[in-house]
């Protein structure tokens, strides 16, 4: 009884993972139609909108933080780097697992390595996600090596760090923006308020804004659940970047809508309302909040601001790829409950993995001194 009470959260999470696994087995046995409302009219649904598009965007804390710490050498952000890398790494693994459910032929996912179509945006996304996941695994590996006390590989990774970070930033820039480019081929499917030649830039800028927001969210939760102190000044410092990224996004979006003469669509129907919710609560409000130092020094206000940014980007990705998305033929799509079971199962597995790493690996230790000393 006491065991149950003490491990309530873990038990719920493991149950969700197990249920997701069972649903996945049904999908592999009886086809995607057996567990989803996906159809010929809506070939992409919850898994693409949330698990892929939001998943990759929300994992951007890894590259933005690594960029600040290693390329700009802003050492004060070092304390949150490892958790950010871990969140990013787990995030990408979760994306890949979701794709293994969503793809019609998951056993052929490796085909993208040998069959190339350089015209295809998906081809670029696939390669970047694959390579960047490898980069993240390497950036994460020191935790394992430290724990095992393997000096030689640790020293090698340490020397490679800057190369890895540059490569990671490059790959992230490419595929974060390319997720937006995926929709450039669908000028009539994507709602006019969201369709734009700037989609790649929009996806990239919002990914930059959501990176620090995710670090704030993840630090706040882990400080509460794992009973650690919260590095308020560190995450408050990271939050400074958010108004810049969102401000650039908003400015370009306004000019874009004006030049394309699309403002009429912003005052028409339900989609217009969603547009304003996204802009006001997901962009303008967090910009104003994070511009104030009183917010950046207050843990609960930081969390509110970060949650707004995250909710805004999630809404944005859904508006682009699902809610505002229509196909030439008729059809209607609301995710099936079992589709959510897959998504929740994967997210729960990610949370469990995070907890295990926090427990068994030096996640919150600062990075070690460059040269491992022989005396230890």
């Amino acid at each position, binding site marked *: 009884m006491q065991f149950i009470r003490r491990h309530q959260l873990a038990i719920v999470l493991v149950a969700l993972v197990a249920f997701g696994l069972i649903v996945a087995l049904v999908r592999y046995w009886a086809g995607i139609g057996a567990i989803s409302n996906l159809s010929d009219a809506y070939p992409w649904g919850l898994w693409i909108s949330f698990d892929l598009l939001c998943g990759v965007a929300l994992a951007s804390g890894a590259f933005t933080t690594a960029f600040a710490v290693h390329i700009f050498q802003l050492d004060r952000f070092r304390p949150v780097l490892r958790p950010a890398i871990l969140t990013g790494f787990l995030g990408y693994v979760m994306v890949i697992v979701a794709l293994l459910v969503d793809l*019609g*032929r998951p056993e052929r996912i490796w085909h993208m390595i040998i069959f190339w179509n350089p015209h295809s945006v998906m081809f670029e996304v696939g390669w970047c996600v694959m390579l960047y996941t490898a980069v993240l695994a390497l950036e994460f590996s020191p935790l394992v090596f430290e724990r095992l006390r393997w000096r030689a590989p640790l020293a090698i990774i340490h020397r490679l760090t800057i190369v890895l970070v540059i490569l990671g930033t*490059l790959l992230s820039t490419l595929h974060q923006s390319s997720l937006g480019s995926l929709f450039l081929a669908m000028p009539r499917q994507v709602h006019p308020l969201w369709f734009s030649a700037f989609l790649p830039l929009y996806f990239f800028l919002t990914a930059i804004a959501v990176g620090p927001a995710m670090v704030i969210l993840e630090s706040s939760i882990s400080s509460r659940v794992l009973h650690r102190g919260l590095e308020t000044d560190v995450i408050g410092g990271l939050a400074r970047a958010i108004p810049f990224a969102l401000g650039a996004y908003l400015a370009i979006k306004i000019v874009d809508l004006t030049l394309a003469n699309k403002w009429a669509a912003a005052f028409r129907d339900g989609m217009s309302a969603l547009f304003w919710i996204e802009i006001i609560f997901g962009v303008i409000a967090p910009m104003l909040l994070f511009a104030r130092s009183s917010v950046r020094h207050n843990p609960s206000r930081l969390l509110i601001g970060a949650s707004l940014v995250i909710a805004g980007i999630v809404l944005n990705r859904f508006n682009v790829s699902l809610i505002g998305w229509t196909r030439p033929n008729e059809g209607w799509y609301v995710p099936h409950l079992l589709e959510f079971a897959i998504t929740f199962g994967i997210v729960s597995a990610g949370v469990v993995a995070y907890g295990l790493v926090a427990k068994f690996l030096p996640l919150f230790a600062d990075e070690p001194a460059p040269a491992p000393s022989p005396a230890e």
Partner: protein
Amino acid sequence: MSRYAMLIDETRCTGCRACQVACKQWNDLPGEQTRNRGTYTNPPALSAKTWSMIEFNEIETGDKVGFYFLKRGCMHCEHPACASVCLVGALHKTPDGPVVYDDSKCIGCRYCMSACPFGIPTFDWDRGLLNNALIRKCEFCVDRVSNGLIPACAKSCPSRVIAFGEREQLIAQAEARIEKNPNKYIKHIYGKDEVGGTSMLYLSSVPFDQLGLPALGTTPVTALSEQVMEYTVPFALAWGATLAGVAAVVRFRNRGKRIVENEKSET
């Protein structure tokens, strides 16, 4: 421009569905269980089991209501969006005209379905891992055409709606028909220029959007994304070099600062 095309004169169609049946027969496709939905269109839409079908549109012209038919199926675009977006290159346009599918490459990402401006490709939603789930669509009877036969639908049509032939000749033929009967036809050959041209060419007596063919521009829908992909490599090189440059400059400045600080603390 591809060699072959089909000219589909919807004003001649009687809705007999011989083409729909012939397609099923030649491609060995199973029947579908359907319900009465208050329309003659049956099955309700293209699917992995139905690659070509007749849609029954009830349209008012003047004081009469009449059936106007559309033979729905892959348009075999000159610049197929499906082929452009497929990451493994499972779809491609042959010089003869058919847009064909290599089912041994496909990974089932369904980008082709999302991107097709006509909403044509369909998927085997009811097939699991052991049952070879694949993308399905009309392949212009490539197996017949490459052996000197005409497509099954064209062969079966008793009302001479579907003419198979060289694309240029069919366009000339369509223009001649419009000229001869200007009151019968809409003055537009659908597919001549839509999304850069298609191998299916349609003639109609009612506006095409009423038949269910979307009003599309003349540029291929993937023009923009292909352009972006072309910029990707140069952009990646430039951005990578910039990042390395920034890292080097920051390092250099910080090292300088550290030396100055060290000297200060020494003196």
